[in-house]
């Protein structure tokens, strides 16, 4: 019996490998292969339209990248978009989660209605916002003019306001995602903690500050991780609303131009590799934060 057990375990683990093999191959094909070929391409000169000029580039694409003012400007614009939109999404998402957590009747209806924006495909949501933000025919201006808040229609997608409008649309679209994650976190906090706190004389604010926030921290960190990674790669909303005009171009939009409009696979891949590394580093930092938040609990 004691001899048979390890053999059986070994046999089982061998079986497990075989059972996992198809999905691992699938992951390798869909995940590893494109990423690796992107790395390889980033060291070549390769434009699909000028296939005859294809050749090894060494680090030339990366040298070009380092001197590319557009890439740098778009990098800062992407950071700006990410920080502001994720910040608002966390604040509004937390507020929404706290409200939803206290609702007794009609919770299902509330949950459904709050998730709706998140369920819409981004392109559809963005197109809808482009109609809302249109200066003549848009809903936003007509409401504001009727309320007397503004005298003349505002060009929401024009200079100065375009990035703010894009952030508005993104916050509307993804706040529900944050709210749902934080709501799950709130549900996981046992009522007893609050009872104990109130016995100790803690008011609402102190309960929130010393019970809710610390216990919610891992969930906040998860929401932050997902949203930051997503926001940093933002494409559709920008593409539909401004096409990258008036200081709204993000790195993904620039990469799209390079890869698809110019069919420049070499340089485009170098930019993709850079984006990949940036997102990787940010996620690493956030994961550390996540780990730290777990340990303090």
């Amino acid at each position, binding site marked *: 019996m004691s001899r048979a057990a390890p053999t059986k375990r070994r046999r089982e683990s061998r079986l497990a490998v075989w059972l996992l093999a198809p999905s691992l191959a699938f992951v390798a094909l869909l995940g590893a*292969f*494109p990423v690796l*070929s*992107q790395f390889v*391409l980033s060291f070549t000169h*390769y434009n*699909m*339209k*000028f*296939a005859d000029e294809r050749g090894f580039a060494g680090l030339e694409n990366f040298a070009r990248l380092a001197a590319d003012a557009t890439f740098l400007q778009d990098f800062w614009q992407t950071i700006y978009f990410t920080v502001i939109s994720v910040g608002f999404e966390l604040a509004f998402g937390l507020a929404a989660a706290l409200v939803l957590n206290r609702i007794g009747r009609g919770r299902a209806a509330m949950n459904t209605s709050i998730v709706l924006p998140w369920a819409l495909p981004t392109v559809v949501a963005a197109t809808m916002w482009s109609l809302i933000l*249109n*200066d*003549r*025919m848009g809903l936003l201006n007509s409401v504001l003019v009727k309320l007397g808040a503004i005298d003349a*229609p505002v*060009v929401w*997608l*024009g*200079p100065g306001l375009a990035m703010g409008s894009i952030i508005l649309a993104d916050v509307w679209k993804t706040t529900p995602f944050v709210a749902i994650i934080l709501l799950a976190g709130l549900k996981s906090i046992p009522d007893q903690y609050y009872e104990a706190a109130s016995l100790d004389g803690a008011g609402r604010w102190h309960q929130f500050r010393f019970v809710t926030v610390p216990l919610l921290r891992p969930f906040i960190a998860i929401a932050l991780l997902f949203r930051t990674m997503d926001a940093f790669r933002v494409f559709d909303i920008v593409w539909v609303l*401004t*096409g*990258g*005009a*008036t*200081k709204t171009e993000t790195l993904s939009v620039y990469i799209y*131009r390079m*890869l*698809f*409009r*110019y*069919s420049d*696979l070499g340089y485009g*891949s170098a930019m*993709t590799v850079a984006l990949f590394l940036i997102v990787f580093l940010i996620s690493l930092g956030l994961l550390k934060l996540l780990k730290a938040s777990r340990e303090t609990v």
Partner: protein
Amino acid sequence: MGKLTTLAGAGVVLSICFLVGCSTGDDGVTRMIFAAGQDPSGATAALIEEYNASHPDVEVTFQVMPANTDTQHDAYVTYLSAQESSIDLYSLDVIWTAEFARAGWIRPVPAGLFDEQEFLSGPLESVMYEGTIYAVPWFTDAGLLYYRSDLLEKAGLPVPETWSEFTRACTSVADPAGIEGFIWQGAKYEGLVCNFLEVLWGRGGDISAETLRDSPERAVRDVESTIDFIRELIETGISPASVLTYKEEESRRLFTEGQVLFLRNWPYVWSIAEDEESSVKGTIGIAPLPHAEGETGYSTIGGWNIAVSAYSRHPEEAFEFLAFITGERSLSLRAIEGGYLPTRKSSYGDPDVLAANPHYSGFFDVFQNTRNRPRTPHYPIASDIIQENVHRALTGEFDSHAAAESIVTEMAAILSR
């Protein structure tokens, strides 16, 4: 990723090929595929059917492509870079000829396939690359000035020809009526390139390879003053600031709702403006675009050509079909049924075409003075150089002189590449 998309593209084509069958089969029938955007009128499909009926040894299939121009372009680039041979004929936007010819993806058109004299000069120029003809013009498009004839008549003003007449009409007619003077396409996209070049040409400037090489200072001056001129249109209220966020449809909608005196747009607006739902039905007219004193107004040319793939296995049969589908009768039928503007001059004298489209006589005048956008294999980059710099200068992010200098130096580099 590139390889994957190529593979995926090839896969799609192969499956199409498998489904409809390509090449010459055992039955001795030559099967060919013609890829083009949708034709809702059905005229193209009818013509192909007719061709197949009269050519028992040939069977052409119409492969409908996505309506979005960029999507179509990306699909073709994927097919052709994978040396796809099942598609024999492609319809190409006029700005793609140089790119596809340089890549070696399309075949030079054999001499004598068509008579160059019979075509409008603008579309004809668009099928040439380095002196060789690579396609046949199929249907055309050009920028037009739409105006409110009722308002101009009431004010006793003629249709403006020069910019000074134009701006005067805007201040004396549009302002008192409480409507916008002039709406065009100023968002950062391809349409801005067309609009910008028209104003530049109408002021006697240009950014052709020769001008950029021989007199770059003059080019900088012309581009700068054109940007300043357009900016002034916005600053003086002739065009609203929001025009810098408008594409075709946003601008068209304002016009057909009766909120605009002058609109620069493409021929498609005519039938919408004359529709029952339009509030300007029966009160509009079309004219060539305005120009500076002593200059000529030019319209940017749009439209589509048809080319034979370099990888087609049946080039002879493909060219024969190409001659048919771009023939006089085919173009006229598509004009009558679908409103596609013919590229052959004779169609504009065809009584059946004019009976179906009385406004074509007005278009024909405009088509006399058309120009092509820069013709280069690097067109997408050239377009982005103009879009970026002009838009940034118009929104005040760039100084107009700096924008003009970067347009001229960057365009010169692209055009000489």
